[in-house]
């Protein structure tokens, strides 16, 4: 498995984004606060994932806080991949679901729980 650790995980005061490339699927793991502090990392990770052009799963179980920057990242992923595919959002917290609901972004994702 090819791994791209985009954020330094030791610095969990902020958040972190990691991208894992499997042969069939790209997994993006979000932890901590996913906000504007993470802007550059998110942009980087998003571009890598979209360039890889395969189905994307986002593990959001570890997200403690998300703002509009986080929403924009998720929406960009959803808009970036092929139209017939759907981004899978795994184990989002209630606050993340709430945020996606309020901003009308829920239809872009297939929400699953493990």
């Amino acid at each position: 498995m090819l791994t791209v650790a985009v954020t330094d995980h030791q610095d969990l005061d902020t958040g972190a984004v990691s991208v894992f490339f499997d042969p069939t699927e790209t997994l993006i793991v979000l932890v901590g606060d996913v906000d504007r502090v993470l802007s550059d990392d998110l942009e980087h990770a998003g571009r890598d994932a979209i360039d890889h052009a395969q189905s994307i799963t986002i593990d959001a179980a570890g997200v403690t806080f998300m703002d509009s920057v986080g929403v924009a990242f998720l929406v960009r992923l959803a808009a970036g991949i092929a139209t017939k595919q759907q981004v899978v959002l795994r184990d989002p917290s209630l606050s993340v679901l709430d945020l996606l609901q309020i901003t009308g972004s829920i239809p872009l994702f297939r929400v699953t729980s493990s």
Partner: protein
Amino acid sequence: MRRDALPPEVSAASTTPGPALPALLDQAAAAILLVDVATTEVLYANDLAQAMAGRAALPLSVDRWGALAGLTDPAGGGLAGSGGPLSQVCRGLPVAGELIRREPRQACGGAGDEQARQTSDSGLHVDDVTGPLWVTGFPLEGDAELNGRTLIVFLRLRGGAGAAVEVGSAAASAAVRIRAVLAMDLAFTIADATSEGLPLVWVNPAFTQATGYAFDRAVGRSCSFLQGPDTDPAAVERLRVALRAGRPVVETLLNYRADGTPFWNEVAISPVLDSAGRLVNFVGIQADVTARVAVEAELAEAYRLERAARAIAESAMAQTSLLADVSHAVTRVDAREAMPQVTDLLAPAWCGWAAVYLSADAGLTCVAVSGPEPTTPRLLGHRLARGRAPQPLAGLLDTGAASLVVAEQLDPLWRLGCDAGMVVVPLRVREQLLGVLLLGSPRIEGRGTDPLREHLLLADAVATRVALALDISRLYEREHTLAQKLQLALLPDLPSVSGLDLVGHYLPSTDAASIGGDWYEVLPLPDGRVLVAIGDVEGHDIDAATTMGRLRSALQSYALEGHGPAALVGWLEQALTALALPRLASVCVGLLERPTTDAPGRLRWSAAGHPPSLLRRADGRVEVLDGAQSPMLGARTERHREHEAVFGVGDLLLMYTDGLIEDRRRSLGDGIALLAGQLAVADVDDLSTLSRTLVAAGPATVEDDAAFVAVRALAAIA
């Protein structure tokens, strides 16, 4: 000094070598005996020799003296009765530089350790005279009193080899040869201590060789005859004082050979006492150390150069450190605030006082002064009108380089603490004068070959860093101001619409660097409806601001064509794609039909990724308009929905961006609920009051920018 009389190697040493220079002859290590050849008894001994043998009473047989002093052959065997150097000397044979050893701990058993450890007059501990010693002996002839006697000198020659080299090794045998030659080259003299003028009574051949004076020409004369015009009188005086006191002494002084050529002579003179402790002779040992003096002069010069190089290196390090500190101090959003730190770094370390004037309003104002009272002028706040600064300052400000002004040329204003003048350093970037740095009484002494030039270069380097930082701050501020102006220019002056009260407000982020993409729009349409919209473009830069402007223009155009809210959002989605704008954006578009005397008003809206608008009813109830929401613009959503609500007289619509309720301690949903609660109890009769209430209730520090627009139906229109 008559330098022309000196050979080159002597000229190299400009002064007599001082006491700090190492001596070839370790004076205190010269133990001297006078022995009667017939009886082989020690008649006289100098102080060190007496101490070595535990101060046993003289006369004493040489063998006994040797045993008490702990002398052995190099291998540690006894000296007495052997064919060793002492026996040889006692048989009247000359001995030149024979090696023996001294082990004082095995010696003078009868005398006791306490006695053996005593210190000689010369201050040297006798235990220091251990290990290899060099014994030299001369049968004395020529003087009636000396005939039949022999001079024995034990030397611990300098160089460390005497103590460090273990006898028997290859290195030791080489050292032995060198020492032997050296010992043979030593000139010995004996002077009569009982006669006026201390006449010489004996000299050895090495003395003749070294000085050019044959035995006959030397004996009978005072030993001062070697002195000449450039001999240091102070060194001679030190010799005389020591001899008068009967103390051993070592001096290096400039002497003259018989042919008049000078040489550096290291002289060690020891008083020699008889058995009753009376002073009988002075034994002198001399060495021509001219070559060494020259070498030492070179060493001293090399040392001086090394120290100078070190001083330059240290100075360079201090300069580098100053520049790093200045750079660090001025690296901030507003470099002007760092000017007191800059002057603190400069004074008093590099100058008496330091001041910075910065350009402001067609003049220069002093913003920082550092330096100790009372020699620092009180310049803070002082203004220099541009173009009317006193000379020579005005002229220097135009030149752009650091310059030194002497005290006499200075305006009295700056003369305080400027005895050593003042360095004027303009702070310039791209031909523009941003200010001036003044250094009162610069410390420019003693660094490098051209201290003034070096100091001015350093001042220029400091000024360059300060000026660049000031310039960056200025550009930064200008860019931020520009961005804010752009933002405000893109936001509408709210129109006056009959029957409606309107307020719109934009809050830039607290972080001065960032520019927002938040916008709002109110536009009365030809069909009587009123467009009310708000949006937020992702990102915080000029691109975000321009994207916002283009979206707003597109919205205005589409709205004027009469489309409904969902269609308008759809058009904006397409516009974002068509214009190849890489940003995501949220938007909420409302179309308002004002209440008329015939019908209640109506609001139709559609949103994309935007927090829901709030509708405050006339009775204070607040509704969250969370329907008709689709994903953000840029997600390529194909169908957008729209909802509608009644909008009656007294009702108030509030649209906002998420920056207004941003708080990482709570969710967006909670933030919306909180805002709704505030709106329910707010005073809405005056919308400017509402605006202030919302700003005050918002986050104290706005990480994101924020905007809101509120519309209230005041009355039904006809």
